[in-house]
């Protein structure tokens, strides 16, 4: 069973819409919406969050922090975070439930794709939070580098160059595939300088057909990571 995901939003429509969007890219992942109050107003409801967590298999018996299952929770604004934290206080077995500090839509899609790829609960959260890193580290007019200095000072363990062959290039779905797969590997990966595990980071490359992606990877899974990206790119992500 894959990791389940719960979306906590002040708005029922936002939660439902975000789930609908992510489900398109991750059809086998249980993604549950907990939006609005239980009488349909704007706000968050502990009961709704608890119900979603239970439906996602997070409470009761059976799911422990073994990595095989678990639930990642994404939230929108301030009190949604508080409600999600409160829900963990109520749960008997919160070990398998992780809160992700991530932008709701980008983080959710990245998390869903990672879960679809079989990533464990920690990797799914990492995928979600990498979306935040990308948003925060967008190179501004000053050309500030992303937060990858820690690894990029050492020579990469493995590198590769791959030309985008599909018509649409690195749009949302390929970026989600690349980021989702990399999130579950034990490797730090940059692609043309951005965090390879960050879907939004990859999308900011604006890489169209014909662009060469330079992949650098560090860590035990470095070679697998480069092969993974290369395989996807050369297959055109299964697109024309």
């Amino acid at each position, binding site marked *: 069973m894959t990791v389940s995901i719960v979306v906590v939003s002040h708005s029922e429509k936002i939660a439902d819409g975000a789930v609908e969007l992510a489900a398109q890219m991750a059809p086998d992942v249980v993604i549950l919406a907990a939006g609005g*109050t*239980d009488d349909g*107003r*704007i*706000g*968050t*409801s*502990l*009961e*709704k969050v608890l119900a979603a967590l239970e439906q996602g298999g997070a409470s009761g018996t059976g799911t422990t922090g073994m990595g095989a299952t678990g639930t990642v929770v994404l939230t929108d604004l*301030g*009190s949604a975070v*508080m*409600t999600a*934290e*409160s829900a963990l*206080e*109520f749960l008997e077995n919160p070990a398998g439930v992780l809160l992700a500090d991530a932008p709701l839509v980008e983080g959710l899609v990245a998390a869903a794709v990672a879960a679809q790829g079989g990533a464990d609960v920690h990797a799914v959260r990492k995928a979600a939070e990498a979306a935040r890193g990308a948003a925060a580290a967008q190179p501004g007019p000053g050309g500030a580098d992303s937060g990858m200095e820690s690894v990029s000072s050492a020579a990469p363990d493995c590198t590769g160059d791959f030309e985008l062959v599909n018509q649409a290039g690195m749009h949302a779905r390929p970026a989600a595939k690349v980021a989702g797969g990399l999130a579950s590997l034990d490797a730090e990966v940059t692609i043309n300088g951005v965090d390879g595990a960050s879907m939004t980071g990859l999308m900011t490359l604006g890489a169209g057909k014909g662009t060469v992606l330079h992949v650098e990877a560090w860590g035990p899974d470095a070679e697998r990571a480069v092969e993974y990206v290369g395989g996807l790119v050369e297959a055109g992500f299964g697109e024309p």
Partner: protein
Amino acid sequence: MGCARAHRRAALGRVTMPLDVNWAVKWLTLCAQAMAEHRVELIELDRAIGDSDHGENMDRGFQAVLAKLGESTPETPGAALKMTAMTLMSKVGGAAGPLYGTAFLRAATALGDAAEIDAPALAAALAAARDGIVARGKAESGDKTMVDAWTPAVDAARAAADGGSTNVLGVLVAAAEAAEAGAVSTDPMVARKGRASYLGERSAGHRDPGAVSSALILRAAVGAAA
């Protein structure tokens, strides 16, 4: 002679209701009453520096607590507070829901299965409630939040309990008075947490609605014991 004095003191002591489940139910009932009575006042306070939903949210939340109390009678004060926590978190909607919910939940945990609350346990439960609010909301004293009512209340309750007072009513009165003074103390503060913080300096000159509702809750606790 000695007998008579002891007897008299016992008689006086009975003026205070023991802090048992009946007290807890009465407290929550008085909370609901207070929120209904002060609904418009809280709305007005929140309109000045927030999104004007605090009065309505608190009223709705405690009305839901009343409804729950009508469905089943809790067995201990802790059980009553835990039910309140769950209900407030589900019905209030705004930030006050998880904040007060956590406060009641932590207090309930601190009280455990005890049938009656003594002065040290009361002070400890109030401290646990305050710590829950701080943990959830990440606000500190002086941020113009409900913490500015709760922390003086906790300190006053602890001082009263540490002073050897076995009179739980005295501890409750000390907490309520300190919370009321704490709410007033938010008037000149510049908000650093919550929606009021968006206003920056313009938040000064208004009383924090969360601090006011906190004081109302602690005042209701006195009313239930007197």
